[in-house]
């Protein structure tokens, strides 16, 4: 059994209203040292046996993200 983490983040050039909202709140709460915040999605998949990286990448890029506006990062680890 392995554990695969997929982080989906907006491409850097795409605006991120969610991250903006968090940044604004941090400023109002006095955490002025935070320069920027980007918000994305975090998926944790549990996979039978060894992960097939190509298949997982395809899943990540077609189902979990829209490559038009999002990038994915894959982290594999086998327990």
């Amino acid at each position, binding site marked *: 059994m392995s554990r695969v983490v997929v982080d989906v983040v907006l491409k850097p050039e795409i*605006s991120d209203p969610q991250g903006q909202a968090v940044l604004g709140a941090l400023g109002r709460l006095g955490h002025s040292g935070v320069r920027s915040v980007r918000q994305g999605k975090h998926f944790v998949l549990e996979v039978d046996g060894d992960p097939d990286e190509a298949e997982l990448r395809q899943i990540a890029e077609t189902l979990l993200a829209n490559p*038009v*506006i999002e990038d994915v990062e894959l982290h594999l680890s086998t327990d």
Partner: protein
Amino acid sequence: MSATEGLSDLDTGPGRLANRLDTVDLAASTPDDEQPYAELGLRADEYDRIRGILGRRPTTAELAMYSVMWSEHCSYKSSKVHLRRFGDLPPSDALLVGIGENAGVVDVGDGYAVTFKVESHNHPSYVEPYQGAATGVGGIVRDILTMGARPVAVMDSLRFGRADAPDTARVLPGVVAGVGGYGNCLGLPNIGGELLFDDCYAGNPLVNALCVGVMRHEDVRLAKAEGVGNKAVLFGARTGGDGIGGVSVLASETFDDAADGERGPAKRPAVQVGDPFTEKLLIEACLEIFAADLVTGIQDLGGAGLSCATSELASAGTGGMHVDLDTVPLRDSTLTPAEILMSESQERMCAIVEPAKVDAFLAVCRRWDVLATVIGEVTDGERLTVDWHGERIVDVPPRTVAHEGPVYERPMRRPADLDALQADDPARLPAPSGPDELRAAWLAVVSSPDGADKSWVTEQYDRYVRGNTVQAGPEDAGVVRIDEVTHRGIALALDGNARFARLDPYTGAQLNLAEAYRNVAVSGAVPLAVTNCLNFGSPEEPEVMWQFAEAVRGLADGCRELGLPVTGGNVSLYNQTGDVPINPTPVIGVLGVHADVRRRVPTGWRAAGETVLLLGETRPEFGGSAWASVVHGHLGGRPPALDLPAERALGGLLAALSAAGLVSSAHDLADGGLAQALTESALRYGVGATLTLPGEPFPTLFSESVARAVVTTSDAGAVRAAAERAGVPVTELGTTGGAALTAGELELSLDELRAAWSATLPALFGSPADAVGTVPAGTVPTS
């Protein structure tokens, strides 16, 4: 200096061939530099015209501005000659602001004015369904806001490929979530729309959004820059690299021989991410700014961004304006000046403010957390000038950018297949006879994706917010109260039967107008004005151009006959997959007025024992009908005969019946004919009816003859008398009551009708798992 060198000056990063900006001076001294006008979509003669206007080659920034502003989308170069027909309609007393502004404005009485418009966001919604649809709503709301109005409601008219096609399962849930996500988060009730399916939209869904706003007469604002010395204030979101895909040709052009691969051209997304929260703040800030009388002119930033807003403001005003591009707040500091001018970043507006009022303006923006920056001012003379890093990069006569672009009379040709199509009369199709066949056809029509219950979609929209929604889907028209004391209100409907338009675009456009008119009329409102969104294929295709011209001619003639002005609209061309254009789809919106919304007439039956009456005349008409399409997959023949005088008579009668409180329900007959209408009225509150069908059951149930409605009343005599006076034929159909629709041996229980009608969309799109991937990591307003 080579061509590439001239353009590379846009970029200041490493690996550049030169580090000089393409300024007006440089353009004058390098008249022969080649420019990538063709890649930007300009024709050689258009490019020559620009050179003629400027007396030199355009700078890179100017070229970018002209190329977007002279695009089909912004310049209406193919459609303009036809749209003039709308402007030529006889003047209407109700029209306060006509075509040419962001949206038309009509007088709805008691000092109130209403502005409404429909706009398309078709292509972006195919590429990124959620954000494409969301930003479509955002854009039309800003158009309404720009007029000085508070936006009060939205509607959405949606068309997708076959309901069971895999790609529809990708596109539809995302579009619906996007329309809902943006509108709900803005606090605008969704009061109606359309949801239709046809193979022709498979690679090209149509997402048309309407917004309506209300203001007092004296609050109307216009998009013009007047008063030398007045400031131009850009406010709202920061500017990023959104939606400038085409223009990055200008940046990429420099990298032709960057084979060393040092760095590629900036990748600029063609899709924008909406931020409805910022738009909500923009709305509240604008309304406070209007109330305090702090602006002399205002324009939203939509397609072509700052290029469009500045050139339109200047062009509509006295002509002179100067902008210092360095002051524009950026989200992405690597943007080139051309890209800043082109960016389609959402949630931005530009206002013209007297110097003495700038501080007050900025204070309102601060209170609402809206970023606002003075970026320029109104100047003497008739030039729009833009500086970057202290150098002049744009110096143009703004009218030539905004309002005097190319205009084409494109060749037109009646489609070669139209005669054959019209000759393929549905009379040849086997018609159902006997109770079993009729019941099967009935169930097929009401359970088809077009006929089925739309609540899978409408439940994702907030219909209640603001507390003034008197009617929303599945009623024929959305009805909104605009005054809590006088009970004055408005009604709106959107309709666009593309099958009729395919068979005959001239008549089809009028039939759509007639249907929207009728939908407003059955609610008891008096129809007042028209908007439209014309979705067609490529104008370079003579057959498409003919369809377009015919539809516009039809709509204009129909409006003339009904005495209604066209207050504005939108044109969306190039809707096609490969060489195959969509069916011509003119979507027509009609606005009506209720003197007292408490008199509005709903579609559903609530009580037993009322008389069911059919108003209007039924002829056997099946060309383009839902029955032919659903049961036989057939499209052919002629659409139903248009009868605008009969629509007028019916509309007048319905308004009178509503005012007199004589009818308890009214439902117009359209797609699916009487069978569809009866089903919807009965299922609304679970009240059936016992009916006697006049004449042949098949045409009675499924014909789509125009100018008809079903009403229920407890005073049939009075309704008959009123109908006679109005010259509207009346047929008694039966009496409400029971748990079935029964006509002799033909009996459909409400349970089986409900099961058929309401199961379709949930079965296609319903399980939560289908929602996967429809909402990207960006904005996910959910509560």
